[in-house]
């Protein structure tokens, strides 16, 4: 099939102006690169945060004993004491009242709630670990590993991505804690709570990806934790997994109504972080908008100059009977050439950058960001958005530049009238 002469001319026009063509291609490639890279980076960071925070380190929904209202306690005390004394507003709740009673029955009720796919109990409290002269304040968490592993995908943190099998005297600690204490798997450390002090064998060392957790968190079996904190057969709370992460808020609302307990979901627990991310995403959107606008104006200007410099040629074509539509088609084809090549180069470079990041992740300050390394993952929607924006920019540039050029009288241009 013969190519239309418009395509032939468009190709010739671009190839005989390599500098102008190259500048437009590079400009578009850079704009595409930025429009793909920045949103992908932010989206990857968000996904990574969700994965690390929610999927691997905390439950979709947690159920806690209802906190006693301090005001209520003061009121109750006033009633008991009459009008003679006002008791200060201090938390005098019995530590045992901070735990869930009869959690086995409660687990069944939670599991029966629509949207809940797994439930596990846990005991949490603060304590210290020591070895030699090194002491650390830590959070101790007692869980039934197989059960808890169905709620939180924390098997990823352990060697071989397998859940550990801990005996009553075993402990799993973060790798930073192990480094700090100078301890290896199989060696012993001292664990102390306000009530109990005992020796525990390090059975596993985990990497959670969170700086603080890797330094200040230890897992023990559920029964061990119950003994360490002397809570008998009670637990601190229940953790539940929903069928969908985004389903957690309605499920937590339903549980709150049914159980009359304190129920929180991952959005409640990470409200500040989510708000910060939303702010950053808004800023990113405006940066991208600015990039798109600057790129569009730049492209339109360069393309306009490209067309103005060729007015005489366009006039010759008009004089030979070339229609306005044909001239517009030539300009549009030139724009599309630039669009396809620029977008392809932009995509290729950004894929290269992301591929490099995947194999050489950015090292970031773990103390500041909670994570030690980071890499951007390609996001299909950002490629689509950049591709569509690139296409629209070039199409608009061709239309805008060609609008006046095709209306000029050939005689005016040829004779400089």
């Amino acid at each position, binding site marked *: 099939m013969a190519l239309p002469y418009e395509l032939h001319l468009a190709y010739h026009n671009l*190839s005989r102006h390599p500098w102008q063509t190259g500048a437009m291609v590079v400009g578009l490639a850079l704009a595409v690169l930025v429009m793909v890279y920045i949103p992908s980076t932010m989206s990857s960071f968000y996904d990574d945060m969700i994965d690390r925070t929610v999927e691997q380190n905390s439950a979709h929904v947690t159920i806690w004993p209802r906190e006693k209202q301090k005001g209520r306690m003061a009121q109750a005390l006033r009633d008991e004491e009459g009008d003679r004394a006002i008791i200060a507003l201090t938390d005098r709740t019995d530590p045992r009242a901070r735990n869930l009673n009869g959690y086995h029955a409660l687990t069944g009720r939670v599991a029966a709630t629509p949207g809940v796919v797994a439930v596990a109990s846990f005991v949490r409290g603060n304590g210290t670990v020591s070895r030699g002269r090194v002491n650390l304040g830590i959070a101790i968490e007692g869980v039934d590993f197989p059960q808890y592993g169905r709620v939180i995908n924390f098997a990823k943190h352990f060697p071989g991505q397998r859940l550990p099998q801990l005996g009553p005297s075993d402990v799993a600690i973060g790798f930073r804690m192990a480094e700090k204490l100078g301890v290896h798997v199989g060696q012993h450390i001292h664990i102390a709570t306000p009530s109990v002090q005992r020796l525990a064998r390090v059975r596993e060392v985990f990497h959670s990806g969170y700086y603080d957790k890797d330094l200040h968190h230890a897992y023990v079996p559920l029964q061990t934790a119950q003994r360490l904190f002397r809570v008998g057969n009670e637990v601190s709370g229940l953790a539940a997994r929903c069928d969908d992460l985004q389903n957690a808020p309605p499920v937590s609302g339903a549980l709150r109504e049914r159980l009359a307990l304190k129920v929180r979901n991952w959005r409640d627990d990470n409200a500040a972080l989510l708000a910060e991310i939303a702010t950053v995403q808004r800023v990113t959107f405006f940066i991208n908008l600015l990039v798109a606008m600057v790129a569009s104006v730049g492209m339109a200007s360069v393309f306009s100059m490209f067309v103005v410099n060729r007015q*005489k*040629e366009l006039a010759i074509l008009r004089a*030979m*009977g070339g229609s306005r539509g044909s001239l517009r088609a030539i300009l549009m084809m030139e724009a599309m050439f630039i669009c396809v090549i620029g977008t392809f180069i932009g995509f290729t470079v950004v894929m290269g950058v992301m591929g490099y990041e995947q194999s050489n992740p950015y090292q970031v300050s773990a103390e500041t960001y909670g994570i030690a390394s980071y890499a951007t993952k390609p996001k299909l929607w950002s490629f689509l958005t950049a591709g569509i924006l690139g296409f629209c920019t070039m199409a608009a540039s061709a239309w805008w530049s060609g609008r006046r050029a095709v209306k000029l009288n050939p*005689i005016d241009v*040829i004779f400089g009238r």
Partner: protein
Amino acid sequence: MLLVVDNVTRQFGGTPPLVVLHDVSLSVEKGEFVALVGPSGAGKTTLLNVVSTLDAPSRGTIRIAGVDVHRLGQRELNRFRSRNLGFIFQDDLLLPHLTALENVMLPGRIARLSRRRARQRAQELLERVGLADRMGHRPGQLSGGQRQRVNLARALVNSPALLLADEPTARLDQATGRGIIQLFQELNDQLGVTIVMVTHDHDVAAVAKRRVEFIDGRIASDQRRG
């Protein structure tokens, strides 16, 4: 009549308006070779532009092959121009990035001739104007006379009813110019191409079968040779 110019006036804006053509009437038969002569500013090129449909008259009508061309819509006018009119300007208006062959093919392609047909026709014409060995050269690689021959071949590629030339030898030396005019004469004699040519050169005008002299936007004389 192939061309009928009927009471055409062309004026340009300004105060007072500049009237370049005053009620000009002219008829050209098929196969004629007409030279429009006269001093600069007499209105010859303006008449040619109006006849070529690239410019519109302020008053009057122009009929080519019975069609009132300035009543055509833009699309019909483009089609009419590409199929019925050929132009040669003083400057060689060739596209610098295309070869001689591609330049000559271009009007054919614009008129939607197939690439093969346009190529065949362009090759024939370039051979006829003596540029068989220059088909692959770009305008920058050709002399002024060769470029003007390419222009001539390009003007003829769609076998136009009317060939319009605006001082085609003005930028050429005498010998080269003579060669070009000889080509025009051959085209007219052998192929019966109707030619309307603007020229200052009385020697060139002497070749034409008819000589129309313009003075101050009016036809001062209209003489046929022989």
